[in-house]
């Protein structure tokens, strides 16, 4: 079943068109990877999925993006509510300059998800456990989140994203600043998270896309050249452009 359906999505930054007629279905509880060279529009497309492009003044998004059959580009959409349902993890870990506990509790608190301190404690613990970080930090929950290693900080950000029980998690190059061990931990985490969440990940690492995703979309110069099962894309893609990119024949 499709969680997200994008139809004829066009994005403009001022006069410059960044995405051209993107049609893409994103299946539920699977990992979809978006690959392509820098500037191809993959992050722009990712940011369309929770209307993060709204914060860029000159950015204009056209077309339809339906999540659970609801068009998120409607004027009446409550974007705060939308981003509660569609969380995001960025390239650089960006914990709040607060304690580990507060990093996680902030979201559930503002969304009124906990009725008591105990309930909030439970959400913090569950989120850290799901992000495979609990054992490493359970004795220092009231220390600053910025004191963690890069990999731990990124898992903290994932814990923060999942604390509000999002249905979709968007990840924009979540491992590009991490070492191979931290990367493997995040990839393992992605495998676990897909049991409950739909994940869309932008990555520059083709081997990472091949390892973690079930569906892959290849973007080039603002167009979605090909989308299909990851298996097919990396073994025998339909489009020559896709093959040239994944095999390292650039330019």
């Amino acid at each position, binding site marked *: 079943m499709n969680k997200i359906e994008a139809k004829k999505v066009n994005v403009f930054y001022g006069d410059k068109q960044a995405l051209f007629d993107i049609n893409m279905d994103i299946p539920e509880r699977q990992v979809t990877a978006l690959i392509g060279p820098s500037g191809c529009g993959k992050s722009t497309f990712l940011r369309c999925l929770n209307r993060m492009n709204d914060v860029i003044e000159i950015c204009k998004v056209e077309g339809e993006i339906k999540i659970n059959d609801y068009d998120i580009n409607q004027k009446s959409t409550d974007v705060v509510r939308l981003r509660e349902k569609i969380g995001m993890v960025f390239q650089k870990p960006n914990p709040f300059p607060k304690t580990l506990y507060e990093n996680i509790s902030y979201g559930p608190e503002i969304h009124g998800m906990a009725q008591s301190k105990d309930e909030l404690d439970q959400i913090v613990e569950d989120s850290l456990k799901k992000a495979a970080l609990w054992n490493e930090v359970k004795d220092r929950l009231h220390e600053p989140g910025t004191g963690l290693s890069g990999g731990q900080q990124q898992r903290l950000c994932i814990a923060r994203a999942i604390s509000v029980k999002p249905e979709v998690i968007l990840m924009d190059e979540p491992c590009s600043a991490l070492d191979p061990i931290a990367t493997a931990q995040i990839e393992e985490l992605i495998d676990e998270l897909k049991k409950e969440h739909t994940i869309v990940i932008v990555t520059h690492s083709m081997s990472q896309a091949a390892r973690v995703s079930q569906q892959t979309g290849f973007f080039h110069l603002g167009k979605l050249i090909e989308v299909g099962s990851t298996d097919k894309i990396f*073994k*025998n893609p339909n489009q020559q452009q896709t*093959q*040239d990119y994944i*095999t*390292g024949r*650039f330019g």
Partner: protein
Amino acid sequence: MTEKPHTVKSYEEQLQQLTNNLVIMGGNCETALGNSIKALCNNDNTIADTVINNDTVIDNFESQIEQEVVDLIALRQPMAIDLRETVTALKISSDLERIGDLAKNISKRTKLINNNLPYNLTQSIERVGAIVQKQLKLVLDSYTNRSPEIALDVWEKDEEVDNLTNLCMEEVIKYLKSGNENIEYGSHLLFVTKNIERIGDHVTNIAEQIYFLVKGSYLEGDRPKGSQPIVNGEK
């Protein structure tokens, strides 16, 4: 699909080197097969010795190709067409190595026979040998040209090889039956015929690999089979 070159030149060179080695290895196998049949039919031990001695060259190519494939996988992580190039090179080299061994075995038996054989027998063996040789040449051409069409032709022609092998087997069996003194040579000739037919099978394996290499999908259905074998073998 003609591929444009890789951005990283050394990667391109490594893949090219792999293809080149496989083509040279294939050429060696063609020579070995041709010579092994020539040696048998002309009772020429010198040529038979050449085949036997040159088999190490073919074996060394197999080891070399295996090493190159492992290096490519470990260091380059090839994908899509490059992955198929790499994996099929490994499989094709292993079929070629077997072809070399079977040709060598024909030559070893030639030396044990060391006698002029009846004309009708050598003619039958030459006939099946020639078609297998042609098949081998075509399959190597299809690899060089990345032609799934030629590969498919080769694959479909295996039936003819089977039929000619069976005719040849019948000749050998007649020869065996015609006198006790023929038992020793006749037994060798049964193996020789079987070896040629096995080479034909390896050629069709290679054809299947080339089809997969270019198309990215496997040839479907059973390989066409000729008449029932006279002597049941490994097939």
